């Protein structure tokens, strides 16, 4: 599915929390009815969801991870989180 949803200034939705799990050495995204295990890029992405713009997030990730994370991938990932109600959109 192509992303049609507007993602401008994503923030984590109410009750959604990032956490580093020291026991398993994993990144977790926790929310009321469950959790996701994230990879390094995913974790870095959700931690940047603080109301800054999508472009800023994409740019920061490119600086950190190089070209392997395409802007489109980041967008798709955020879109998936958004369709599960895990991120919402500040102002906009």
């Amino acid at each position, binding site marked *: 599915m192509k992303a049609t949803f507007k993602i401008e200034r994503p923030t984590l*939705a*109410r*009750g*959604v*929390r990032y*956490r580093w*799990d020291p*026991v*398993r050495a994993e990144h*977790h995204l*926790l*929310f*009321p*009815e469950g*959790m996701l295990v994230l990879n390094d890029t995913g974790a870095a992405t959700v931690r940047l969801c603080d109301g800054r713009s999508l472009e800023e997030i994409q740019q920061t990730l490119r600086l950190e991870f190089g070209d392997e994370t395409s802007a489109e991938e980041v967008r798709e990932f955020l879109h998936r989180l958004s*369709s*599960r*109600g895990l991120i919402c959109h500040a102002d906009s």
Partner: protein
Amino acid sequence: MQTPRPYALLAELTYRCPLQCPYCSNPLELARYDQELDTFTWQRVLREASELGVVQVHFSGGEPLVRRDLVELVATACKYGLYSNLSTSAMTANPQRLTQLREAGLDSLQVSLLDAEPATNNWLAGVPSFEKKQQAVASAIKLGFPVTLNVVLHRHNLDRLTQIIDLACQWQVDRLELAHVQYTGWAFHNRQALLPRREQVIQATEIVAEFRQRDANKMQILHVLPDYFQEFPKACLNGWGQRFLTVAPDGAVLPCQTAREIPQLEFPSVHDQSLSRIWFDAPVFQKYRGTDWLPEPCRSCERRELDFGGCRCQAFLFTGDSGVTDPVCLFSPHHELVEQAISQAHSGIEMEFEYRRMKK
């Protein structure tokens, strides 16, 4: 295969509850387990759970708010970095108590509702409770809690699903969880009076799909399908002893909250051993872990890694043997028992249900 560590702990703080829902998953013999763990022991359990790898704790019951030390326990969970969720009937969830819970670090709140219609809600709960639930949801939202409204679906409320969804939108909750009754505990006892008609289930699925099409960004709906009406069973808990564990009010450690249904199983207690010892070594956790124990037809079935043969409690309730394929499965040699249960429940004579009560 290496034994994975659990992600979630269901902390059943008490079996006491002001409501009397006829589908309650608590055991029938509630009074047998009235020796509740004290605060200190629960705090130890929370610490051991976090060391074992648990990241989420669900405070549940019964009604966890009847425990005077709930705020303290939430604070402890928070101290260990656990994500905490409270499932409540909201009967005693006044704004002061909710504020204290918020300050103690409670992450999310799940409030049960029995029906969109106040009179039916109160009839099903056995107690007037609709208004209290409404007030609790309003104050929780005001305090900034993410709120999930949880409605258990069955014959008596399925026809009002549209109203239920409308009400949840109106109350502005973040999520609506629609879970069909799981027929264990009191629900199994009352199965004849609760089982829906197949058409009701189909219609419900359509209503949810329609809402998701139209209003997806208004509210999240989680829809847990009723397994009696499916072809294959649920991957109960993602597999026995794989991700979840339950500590019951008296300190018994259960692979699943309804495992007490199976009288042949012996459950270790937090009084005697550490949670980690129990998780990795207790025979009851080993018994149905993984796929090696699976009987036929599961053993040679492609889906065995998907559903692990289904629910052990359901296998026991239908057949008296917790080690067989879940009868919900089309391939189970006992599958006709499920069909029978459904048709019997609609044989023309309306059954009354029995309210959940503490019998001494």
